[in-house]
């Protein structure tokens, strides 16, 4: 049976989601999405320019790719809500990644404002993906509010530091009954693989692909690595033992028959 990620009635085969900022050109971005066989791409509404004299980013997202608009630039719930509504009105669909950032130094999200935006936008019929700092209670609240998935960060956006929040993400994977999509900070394919091995439903990568010397090849590398991590997770990864387990130093004296 094919392993598909189901979100809001849609089935997604490729669990690598790709962000579309930071590429040196839209054409490289398009080739990268193609090479990865990406099925979901996030696009910042602030970059969308339908009446552009130049190029409009939306024309470079392959048709096979579902667009998830993000609310980049929103500083509070109200701004995120307004951006989401503008996106819908512009025909960009109703999949929305909520990004509320009040911190321009580390670009860390404001979980409380994000939650408020989730509550409103779910009521308005959006399929909502909150980007958040990993926190179990907040994740639960996002789930209760009707989020379609939650997107905890691995480390700050663009930092390429990997899954620094691993322990918290593992708890969220274990406890929250929604797809957990690790977003931000993944710098290399092995880190994306690590998230998938942990049981993440998907990962979202942008910077590490866009600013590598060969984004098209790197996109493919991430895609294959995500696939490998997913297969490993599904196969059941054997537990790690710190010692060899041949002898029984504490119970060897028990000579009775079992």
């Amino acid at each position, binding site marked *: 049976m094919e392993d598909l990620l189901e979100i809001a009635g849609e089935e997604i085969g490729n669990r690598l989601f790709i962000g579309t900022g930071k590429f040196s050109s839209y054409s490289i971005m398009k080739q990268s999405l193609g090479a990865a066989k990406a099925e979901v791409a996030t696009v910042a509404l602030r970059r969308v320019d339908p009446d552009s004299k130049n190029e409009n980013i939306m024309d470079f997202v392959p048709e096979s790719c579902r667009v998830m608009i993000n609310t980049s630039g929103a500083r509070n719930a109200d701004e995120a809500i307004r951006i989401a509504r503008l996106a819908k009105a512009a025909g960009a669909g109703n999949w929305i990644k909520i990004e509320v950032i009040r911190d*321009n130094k580390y670009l860390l999200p404001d979980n409380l404002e994000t939650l408020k935006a989730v509550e409103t936008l779910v009521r308005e019929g959006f399929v909502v993906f909150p980007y958040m700092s990993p926190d179990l209670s907040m994740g639960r609240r996002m789930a209760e509010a009707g989020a379609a998935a939650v997107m905890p960060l691995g480390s700050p956006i663009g930092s390429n530091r990997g899954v620094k929040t691993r322990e918290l993400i593992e708890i969220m994977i274990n406890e929250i009954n929604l797809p957990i999509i690790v977003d931000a900070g993944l710098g290399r394919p092995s880190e994306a693989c690590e998230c998938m091995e942990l049981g993440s439903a998907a990962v979202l990568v942008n910077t590490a692909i866009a600013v590598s010397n060969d984004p098209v090849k790197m996109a493919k590398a991430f895609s294959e690595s995500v696939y490998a991590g997913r297969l490993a997770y599904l196969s059941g990864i054997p537990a790690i033992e710190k010692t060899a387990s041949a002898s029984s130093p504490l119970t060897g004296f028990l000579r009775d028959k079992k």
Partner: protein
Amino acid sequence: MSFYDVYIKYRNFDLDKVFRSNSPVSIQPILERDRLDLDHFIYLLSPQAENFLESMAQKAQAITRNNFGNTVQLYTPMYLSNYCDNSCAYCGFNFNNNIERRKLNPEEVDQEAQYIHSLGLKHILILTGESRGESPVSYIKDCVRILKKYFSSISIEVYPLTVNEYTQLVNEGVDGLTIYQETYDDSLYAKIHVYGPKKDYKFRIDAPERGAEAGMRSISIGTLFGLGEWRREVFILGLHAKYLQDKFPEAEIGISVPRIQPQVGGFKPVSPVSDRNIAQTILALRIFLPRLGISLSTRENPEFREGLIPLGITKISAASTTAVGGHTIGGKTSQFEIQDRRNVDEIKIMLERKGYQSVFKDWLQI
């Protein structure tokens, strides 16, 4: 507490003493750090660090790529009025200069806006001289109302305003504030701002935070190179940018270091700044403040601009004119001479060649 208090604290700070006490053996340990403190920033600005510009550039490029990607945002200035009540020694719009004064009427604003929009530009920076009589806040608001039809982002570079006035402009649709202190050296400031409201050093130095308080999304500050001693100016500029980042984490803080160019009046730079000095400035600021926006104007020549881009530039102007109505009305009197006269397509092609995407639109009116 405002930045003016910080300035007073560092006003007599002995930079040279720190430069002298620093061991110039290697810059590598600083470049390997994730976070820099003030002493590290000072070292990057030091005469000794001039020997390490290439290593600094490698680091700065990597930081810029991770934070801003392979993209550069384009904008253009639009001069609305050159009436001015100030006499500033270095400025072409000095009220003592016998130049043609004009201010765009609403039809002319519309005409200029249509033209700039037709070039594909979506981010505009509007400028006026300092004349509350000729270009009052109500006039600026009227212009913004027209410009909103054409542009995704509108920034202002006008005389310093109160929080209430900035709020009115934010509510009208302005999202960015640019205001340069020109020189942070208050005694030099007093000398070269001979006459007019701009003499009020404190009201100007605290304007960026009033703008941030009013809800401006982006704040850009700067010092005019050629006035004060550059290392000192950049040191205070770095402090100012960091202060704003710390106090207003939700705002995007940016800087620019325009260099004095020939203008009507013939003012000569007090302390000249070399190309290497500008490069070191950009590198030190980029490494000290990784998320800082750095913009580069058409005051510099094409070749130098191109070289600076990978060192940390995030925004550049294109198709610039510094005359009121300079695009379509035939305004001739410029505030200063521009060196890079390339049009939007030429800039776009240059950026592509260097491996950068030109970002025309990076905001929306919400």
